């Protein structure tokens, strides 16, 4: 279970999260919707441990572990996975090299031996096929020259291979057309399980047609202002965020 209590965080001395509360039990998918500048992305960076996002109050625990006491890599090894809104391009590091380094880091943290090359290739091939990612593409430097859709599918591939238990999907639909959203969303849906909690951060309701949330939260001005079922997303799509004190986006 993810428990966030009265979380306060600032960036460059400006408070962005202002007493944020959220509980996500295992097996559930929660959507966080909100206008631009509401602090959605900040939340994902704070939970995954990015430098420059300073926690000034409150707590966040995942299965009882204090996330803020851990480095970004320790959080990842404990099951936290941030699917980036804008995945990084890393010239000179082949996707396969990167995937193997990441998988082995997780195995090492669990006290397991490194994955053998044949096992690794088999695992990658199986998951890549489901996402229509060619092995040729994975020999190229990570995300370099990839389209927006390819980058997002690559994020889902990493998720499928690393098998995280707490997934933070940050604006997964931004910049994607409907087909690309569908492929990525199907990939995410395959990873839903009774042991996995997911937070889907999105501005639009559209993505939630593909990934059905158990709970929808409306976030604005650094706080959760309202929570409800999936119908809340539809309501927001119609009424906009204006009633939450935000400008229409």
């Amino acid at each position: 279970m993810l428990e966030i209590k009265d979380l306060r965080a600032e960036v460059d001395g400006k408070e962005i999260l202002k007493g944020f509360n959220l509980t996500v039990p295992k097996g559930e998918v929660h959507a966080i919707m909100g206008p631009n500048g509401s602090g959605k992305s900040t939340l994902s960076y704070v939970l995954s441990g990015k430098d420059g996002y300073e926690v000034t109050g409150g707590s966040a625990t995942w299965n009882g572990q204090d996330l803020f006491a851990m480095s970004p890599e320790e959080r990842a090894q404990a099951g936290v996975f941030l699917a980036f809104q804008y995945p990084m391009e890393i010239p000179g590091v082949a996707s396969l090299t990167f995937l193997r380094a990441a998988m082995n880091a997780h195995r090492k943290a669990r006290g397991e031996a490194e994955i053998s090359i044949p096992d690794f290739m088999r695992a990658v091939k199986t998951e890549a096929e489901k996402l229509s990612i060619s092995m040729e593409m994975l020999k190229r430097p990570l995300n370099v020259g990839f389209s927006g859709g390819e980058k997002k599918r690559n994020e889902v591939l990493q998720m499928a291979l690393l098998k995280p238990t707490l997934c933070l999907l940050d604006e997964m639909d931004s910049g994607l057309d409907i087909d690309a959203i569908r492929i990525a969303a199907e990939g995410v849906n395959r990873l839903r399980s009774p042991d996995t909690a997911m937070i889907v951060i999105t501005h639009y309701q559209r993505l939630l047609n593909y990934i059905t949330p158990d709970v929808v939260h409306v976030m604005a001005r650094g706080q959760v202002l309202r929570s409800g079922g999936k119908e809340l997303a539809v309501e927001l799509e119609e009424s906009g965020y204006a009633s939450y004190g935000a400008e229409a986006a």
Partner: protein
Amino acid sequence: MTIHQTITAAATPAEQRFLDLYASVCDRLPGAGVPAVRAWREEALDAFAALGVPHRRVEAWKYTDLRALMTAVHPLGGLDAGARADVDASIGRALANIDSYRAVFAGGKFRPDLSTIQGAPGISFTPLCAKLKSEADAAATLAALSLPKGDVVAALSTAFATSGALISIAPGKKLDKPIHLIVIASCEANAYALRHAIKLGDGAEASIIETHVGAGASQAWSYTALDIGKGAALKHARLTQSAAALHLASAKVTLGERAVYEPTHAAIGGALTRSEGTIHFTGPNARATYNAAILARGHSHVDFTLVVDHAAPHCESRELVKAVLDDRAKGVFQGKVAVQRGAQKTDGKQMANALLLSNDAEFDSKPELEIFADDVVCGHGATAGQLDEDLMFYLRARGIPEAQARALLIAAFVGAALDTIDNEGLHTALDEKVAAWLAAK
């Protein structure tokens, strides 16, 4: 009354050390009893004396003040019986295992027992010292080993040369495996001087790997003349590796028309490594692609200086330098592109990128374009920066520990200069060297 006074340049202690060294070894150098050899050496010594030990007010040595950096000259090695040498231990198994025609110089001497180049098909190989024994041999050989003007390193390498590789590849010959020139300093208290000359006949294709390994604070200076014939192609990897040694190298490369030259230079560590070169286009439609990688920490100082001389039209040059500098290390890249009159349609580009891992590391990049033709494309760029924190976070957010993430990104950065190497064994060996360097911190 008029006072007549002859002014002669007095040798400072910096020059005097070399002159004294010559006086102490001149009767024991190879070919000491052969007048032609002696004259050849002393012409070089005179050239050195006239040039002096370069310092920061000499433009080409502005960032590498040799006078300040080289405060002692070790006794010359390579005059006595061959020293012990273990190639595997010196250069590492991965490099040693590359299938090649091998020419090993250890402690300033050619080591036939460790070499395999002798008698290789299509390759004529002779150690320089073998040609210095008789007046007739020497006269014929040395006529082709002229001294480039204004080149201090070439002058020292010539005056003190105890040996060197004289290699000639027959016209049209396509070598089935690389030539591996392995130069090992065997004693940390010595200085070594070698002079090499390599010639590719017209249409020949070859790959040469040079591995230079220092021992402790050993000193080495070398000069290589490389002549690439019409339509010939040479891939040339050169690795200099040591912790505390001094390497001074100079190379003059001449390309005939349609020739292709692809050098990749890597320097890992070393108290002082200065590798200067000239690539001289003499005929049209030739191409040179120069890649260089610098990995330095501690007080290392690595200087790559390159002059690309476009003296013929329709030639293309590319330069890419990647420097990783930590602690108080200093990296230098001076890249000059000269386009002579009439060298129209020249296409020359250079880029130097430095990754500074500490606040005290320094990278000096001096691009220089000298263009006397009006229909050319020339450009240069330089960057210096730190590791991208966003990339670091991306890797760490996938569970990759910080140190490993850092190593991955640094290896990727420097790898851009090594990716043109198509010999798999060499590529793997260099990757291992980079990984070992990164792990040593």
